[in-house]
Each structure stands twice: as structure tokens, then as C-alpha cells.
């Protein structure tokens, strides 16, 4: 079940809509729709830290202009997966393909250049430098002439921080810093933007603010991968959802399906031992 680019994502609500496929139908795949070949394809991905294997055999697809939410309890490997995709972490197995190019062994710099931009969790801005300098750094690889233009473009999404452009990033509030790191991502003109836990530590108002920017981006055709703890808000915004548990994809579905909350709960807690027996 896919939503096309023109439909409003707000219609997909947790309470369910009339159009719901059987719970056990093959998961909605972007590849089914000829209008939309997947922009990002992850196949059989294994990754971990040193000897500790965290991810096992992850398959994932994201089409252009859709928002995909990645949910799961802590320790499931959501951030690890994003890092593996963007090149911050090496893969032990599997592949990452983006816009036809194989990015399995790329550095974060190369993936960003290809259009896959990862905004890491924790709103880690460079506190000793100004807002504008932080954005200039995001435009390090951009041609000099374009840098200013791109920065202004990014700031149009966040007038709150545009007003503070000469202040030290360390002086901003947590919410403003989160907006700044998303703006940094936008300076790179992403085709696919990964937002890793953008809501962490933010008040509900600010969370909505950041997520509305994500909706705006989708309207412009940017794909978004959203890693989130706040399940309801993520489901309200996203087109499709993957649930990760213990390093594996436990479930994937369109957000239009009706019994998502129950399915998610089962995915996390297992059927009291079902997950352990996989």
C-alpha cells in the first residue's frame, strides 16, 4: 500500500483507515510501484562495533519523496543502522545502494556528496563557533559561490535561528540546536535526509516544528528516513514504517494499516519468547 507523492500524509493515522491490507500480506515495497524505483536500497546488511554484531541481515528500501520511519526499542540498532548506511560505520556484510551507486564502502563525505545526508542524534553543533559558521562548515564541499545561497535556503526553513545567525551555537537552546543540525543537513541539498532521533530532549511544540519541516521537505521531493522514539508522531508523519528489534527487521508496513500499534507491541516484546526463538 503506497501513498503517492500528492496525497497528504496526515490522512494516515494510527486509528487506521479503511484501506488496510491483511496483516500478514507481503510488506509494501517501493519497488512494486513503477513510478517509484527505490532511491535507497539496503540488502542483507550486517554491522556492529568491534566484535559485537548489532545488525543482522537488514533489508530496507526508501523511495524518492517518501518518509520512512524506523522504530524500535533501544538497543534494537536503529542508530547503528543509520550509521552503517551513511558510512560512519563499516559494514560487515551486505550492501547499500543509493540512486544506482554502490555506497557500501563509502565515507560519510562521499555519501553526502551523492545526496544521502545523515543528521546524527544528539544535536551536536560546534558550540564554539557561530550559527553561520556551523552552516558554512556544512557547506565545506559546496562550490564557494553557492555556499551563501544554500545557507539562506536552509535558513528559510528555520527563521528562529536565522535571527540568531551570529550567536555562538553553544548559546542556543536544545531545540534551536536541533534546528541548526537539520539546517546543516539541508545546506548539503540532500535527496534523502536521515533524521536520527530529532525529538530527543525537545518539548512537544518543538518536536512538531521539526517534523513539520520534514513534511515540507517531502512535498519538495526529498526522501526522509526518520528514526524516532515517539511512535505516534512518527506514524502520523510517515508513509511507511520499519520496526527493528534486536538487530533485525521485525516488521514493516504502510502507516495506513489499521492494527499497527498492536503489531508494533508484538514486534518489541515478542510473543514472550517468540523473538528469542527466531
Amino acid at each position: 500500500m503506497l501513498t503517492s507523492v500528492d496525497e497528504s500524509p496526515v490522512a494516515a493515522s494510527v486509528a487506521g483507515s479503511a484501506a488496510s491490507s491483511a496483516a500478514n500480506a507481503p510488506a509494501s515495497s517501493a519497488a512494486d510501484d513503477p513510478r517509484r524505483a527505490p532511491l535507497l536500497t539496503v540488502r542483507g546488511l550486517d554491522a556492529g562495533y568491534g566484535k559485537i554484531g548489532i545488525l543482522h541481515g537488514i533489508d530496507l528500501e526508501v523511495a524518492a519523496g517518501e518518509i520512512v520511519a524506523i522504530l524500535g526499542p533501544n538497543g534494537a540498532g536503529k542508530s547503528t543502522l543509520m550509521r552503517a548506511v551513511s558510512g560512519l560505520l563499516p559494514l560487515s556484510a551486505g550492501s547499500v545502494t543509493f540512486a544506482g551507486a554502490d555506497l557500501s564502502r563509502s565515507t560519510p563525505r562521499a555519501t553526502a556528496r551523492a545526496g544521502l545526508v545523515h543528521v546524527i542524534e544528539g544535536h551536536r553543533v560546534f558550540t564554539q563557533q557561530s550559527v553561520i559558521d556551523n552552516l558554512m562548515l556544512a557547506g565545506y564541499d559546496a562550490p564557494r559561490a553557492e555556499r551563501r545561497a544554500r545557507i539562506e535556503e536552509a535558513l528559510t526553513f528555520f527563521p528562529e535561528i536565522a535571527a540568531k545567525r551570529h550567536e555562538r551555537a553553544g548559546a542556543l537552546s536544545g531545540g534551536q540546536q536541533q534546528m541548526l543540525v537539520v539546517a546543516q543537513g539541508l545546506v548539503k541539498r540532500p535527496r534523502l535526509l536521515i533524521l536520527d532521533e530529532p525529538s530527543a530532549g525537545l518539548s512537544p511544540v518543538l518536536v512538531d516544528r521539526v517534523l513539520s519541516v520534514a513534511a515540507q521537505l517531502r512535498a519538495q521531493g526529498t526522501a526522509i528516513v526518520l528514526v524516532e522514539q515517539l511512535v505516534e508522531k512518527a506514524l502520523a508523519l510517515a508513509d511507511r514504517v520499519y520496526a527493528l528489534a534486536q538487530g533485525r527487521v521485525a516488521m514493516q508496513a504502510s502507516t495506513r494499516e489499521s492494527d499497527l500499534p498492536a503489531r508494533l507491541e508484538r514486534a518489541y516484546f515478542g510473543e514472550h519468547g517468540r523473538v528469542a526463538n527466531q
Partner: protein
Amino acid sequence: MSVDSELQTRRPIAMTGAGGAAGAGGAGASGGQATHSGHHRNEDWRKVWPFLAIFALAALLPLAGNNYWTVIATRAAIYWILVSGLNLVVGYAGQLAIGYVALLTLGAYITSVLAAGNVLPPMPPFLALICAGIGGGVFGLVVGLPALRLRTFYFAMATLGFATIVTQIALAWQDVTGGGIGLSGPAMPAPFDSEMGLFYLCLGLAVLCTLLTANIARSRYGRGLIAIRDAEVAAEASGISKVRLLSLIFIFAGVLAAVAGGLFASLQTYITPDAFTFELSVLFFIAILIGGRGSILGPLLGTIILTVLPELAAPLAAWSNFLYALMLLVIVLAAPGGIAALLDFRSRRPLPANRRIIPDAAPLDRLLSRNGKEHGRGGVGDDASNDARNHTNGSARNNVSNSAAGISLHDVVLGFGGVRAIDGLTLAITPGQVHGLIGPNGSGKTTTLNVISGYYRPQEGTLRLDGAPLPAGQPLLRAAHGIARTYQTPRIIGEASVLDNVMIGGTLHGQASFVETLLRLPRHKRDDTSLRQAAYDALQAVGLAALADARADRLQHSELRFLEIARALVLRPAFLLLDEPAAGLAAEEIRQLGELIRHISRHGTGVLLVEHHADLIFDICDHVTVLNLGRVLADGTPAQVREHKEVVSAYLGG
């Protein structure tokens, strides 16, 4: 689910004869379990023969008739006396003391000054040597103490500075040291005043020093030093006191270095400050690193090589310092383990490919029931005194009413920079129960563990053990209270064997003093045997006995997790704190982990299990506490918690 019926007594996997010494290193003895006495003798021989060969060859050297080489050999022996002690500081404890020539200088001057009678009436040389040793011990401690506060690089720099100072003092204090002119070294009494005589004296002392340092290296002191170097946090939790251990080693190394200095002065017959160059310090330091850390044989070979190298050819002599540095660079980049690692053929033998971890109940029972119902104080040594001690402890424990038994936290608050990691937590760990602690990331689970283990000091609230307050901020004392733990990321010593790693857990049980260990007196031997047996039992209990002699860094991640549990078990803990032990484990291993934990708790140990694996928690816990944002969200039996609506939504977010 009944655990006991599933845990049948399986036969332990037989030792595949992969036992044996840790290669040429002689480092941290392994494999000498009491149950494998035949092996024991084989391994000892394998470790010892290289030393015998070297010293035998050395002893025969003067008979070749070449005096020049006798002098070189004497110098090598003297250097080795210093290096053997420094080896414990640099190679074992990992403290980068680069400026050790300072102690050589000190020893040389003290001996010479006392023997010459510049300050006091002239002393017989041997007495002067002893005084130098005492001086060396004191200054060794002075030089070494900053190591406890300073980071690696800073400490290295400080020792460099110290070396410069000592040389300058020697230059300046002309009345005593003769300044730039120098003074004569002590003349040893006959028969040691000839070249051959001095050589045999130095050789004898070198052999003695080898024995002494090897005794320390292979004991709980040696293991403790390596633990401080590579797994400091875990060492602390096992009760190893960095301050105490390092102080002992610095004093010991200082004594050896100063004695070497006195002999050096005797060899040179005349000393001036420029005999003690920075290059000499570098030689000692590099000899250890080329030889390999955690080894006795390696640095011995390193010392010999570096002493002999400049003598082999004239151009080598000119470029000798450059070559030393080049060798160091090559070793660091290509073979960080040094010669010892290169010679360690055993550790390159492949481990069985499809090995499985199979825990075993019988050794666990043997280990934990060993000293009756007492936990944590189950010491080593003869049973009579043990029972007596158990009695006093036992009675102290029995006097505590049941309700207060166990670890209890009450309204604990702990914040970091304005954020409350724990916000009013009340929790109780009861002996004999498995208590689960779950919650989303950032809920304060690990922080709670760290408070109980003493790393963090709560700002409010109380922490009690059996009703008595548990001192906060003192992780070192926890082991003595019978509290053991594992870590989110396994903290083990990669370069040491699995058995050595496990024996670290039982360090507190050792009763032999440093001197007794130095001289390998009977009490040390009893300690060692008992600890080794307990460690082996622990390894069998967790199912890793077949890997006892393997280097720990060759183990898979899941095996390391079980290794940490074995290490905790050797303490015979009253309380076991487990930090996400199931992370990274396969399904079958998780099941075995669960059984193991249940079995441990049946012996009366109170277990606190912090976990993300909800299924493991619900399967084996008697009691579950759910944390969220530092507060208790739910608390009760697994069934109760599972039904709790807020728990489900906390996990799903929102």
C-alpha cells in the same frame, strides 16, 4: 519453567592438550590446574628452559677467554637487573617511565659516595650497595607516585624531567659527587674484584632478579598490574588497589635499579655525570617494549640484544641509538607485542571453529558451596581458620533480620549537570532472587548499577547493605563486601589468558604478602593453587573451560560475556550485578545465560539483571523494576509488569 531439570550435569569438555605455557613469555602462568599435574610439570619446563639456556651460556662465557666480552656481558647483566624491575613498571603496569636512568644514577652515586667515604666514614661496598637499594626504593616511590594522578604522556614527561634533574644535581653538588670530575666507583671485595669475579656476582644477582620478578609476575600481583593497565575499572571492582600495588612495584623497581647503579659504578670503576645519558634511559625502556609487555623472557632478550648490538660493528656503535629508536618504531607499528608475541606460537594455534558454550552445574555447585553458606569472604587457606572466619561473618550476617538483608536503595537521586539521571529510586536486591531492571535508554539503568558498585555518589537517598550504609564513591571496597559485576562492554585483558582473566576476580582471596610472593613461600603456593582451582571451576561452570589457556582477545564476543561472569563468580559473590549480559548473544546462548543466572541465584546470591531483552527478563526474574527517566515506573512480578499499561507505552514512546 523448571531450570534445574534442564541443567543436566554434562561432562566438562576435556582439555585438548592445548595447555602449555604462554609461549616464551613466561608471562602470567596458565594451565597449571591442580587437576592436571602432569601438564603442570611440562609447562613449567617449557617456560624455564630458555632462561636456563641463556644463563648457562652466559656462565660459560668467560671461559672463552675474551675479557672484552666478559665486560659486555657484565654490563648486560647489570642492565638486566634494572630492567627486570622496570619491566614490572612498564611492561606489566603499563606506566611509561622513560627517565629511569635517574635511579641508576642515584644508585651509582650513593654507592660510590658511601664506599669512598665522602660524607660518612667509608662503608664496605656491600653495605653501601644495600643503602643504595634503600635510597632507590624511596626515590622509586617518589618518581612513581605522580603516575597515580597523571595521564600517560604527562607521566612520561615527568620522568624525563626527573632524569634531567638528577644529572644536574650530580653535576652541581661538587663536594659530594665530585661534580663534572666525578668519583671512583666502589671496589668490590675479593673474589669479586676481578673482571670474572664481578661478572659472576652480577650474573648471580641477575638470575636472582629474574626469579624474583617472575614470582611477582606470575602471582596475583602480576595479574593485578596487568589488570590496572588494561582493565582498570574492572580491576577496581575486583578490589585491586591501584595505589597500593603501584607503590609496591615502584619501590621494588627502585631498589633493583639502584643496586644496578652501584654495580654499574663498580664496573666503570669511575663515574661522571655524563655516563648516565638520556640514551641509556631510552635503552632500558626500549628493551622492555621490544621484548614485549607482560613477559619476562622478552625483555631479557631485548636487553641482551640492545647491549650487544653496538659492540658487533663500529658503524653500529655510532648509529646504535638511531637503531634502537627504529626498532621501537617498527615494533610499535608491526608487532606491538614485541619479541614475546612473535615467539608465542601457542597463541597462534587455531581455536576450535564451531565451539559452543555449555555451562555446567556441578562445578558451579562446587565453587559456590565451597565454604558453606558464606559468600564473599570465602577465602583461601586452610579450612580450619576459614571456618572460624566464616563463623564470625556468618553470625554477623545471621544477626541481621531478614527484611534488611540484601542491598537496598532508598529515594536515591543522582544528577549530572542539571539532568537527573536517577530521580528518587527505591530498589531492593534480595539474596537468592533474580531482580530485573529494565527501561528505555537514558532511564538510568546503568547509572543505578554504577551507584551500587560505588562509582557514583548519589546526591540524596541511602544505599545499604544488610542494613548498614554502603560507602558511596568507593568502588574498591565493593569486592570485599561480596558485590561483583559485569559491564556493558566486556572489560577484559586481551593479552592475558582466559584463566588469568578469571583469576583476577579472586584477587582479594589471596593472603600472601608481597614478600611472601617474592620468595614463593608456602602461603603463596597455597593461594595460587586454590585460586587456580576456583577459577577453573568458574570456567567450567560457565562453559569456557576448553579455552582456559587461550588469549582472551581471541574469544568471540559472546564468550567474553560469559568470561566476565566467571570472573565475578570466583569472588563467590553475595550479590551479582549484570549489565546487559545478553547483548550480542545468540538465542541459544541467551537461554543458557538464563539458566546459569537462575542457578547462581539458587545458591543464595542476589542478582540484579539490567537488560534490554524483555523475554530474558520475563523468563528468569523473580522480581522486575521498570525505570523511565530515572523513576520507577512499575515494580512487581514479571506478570504484573507485563500487564502494566504504562510500561508498554514507555517502550513504544509517546
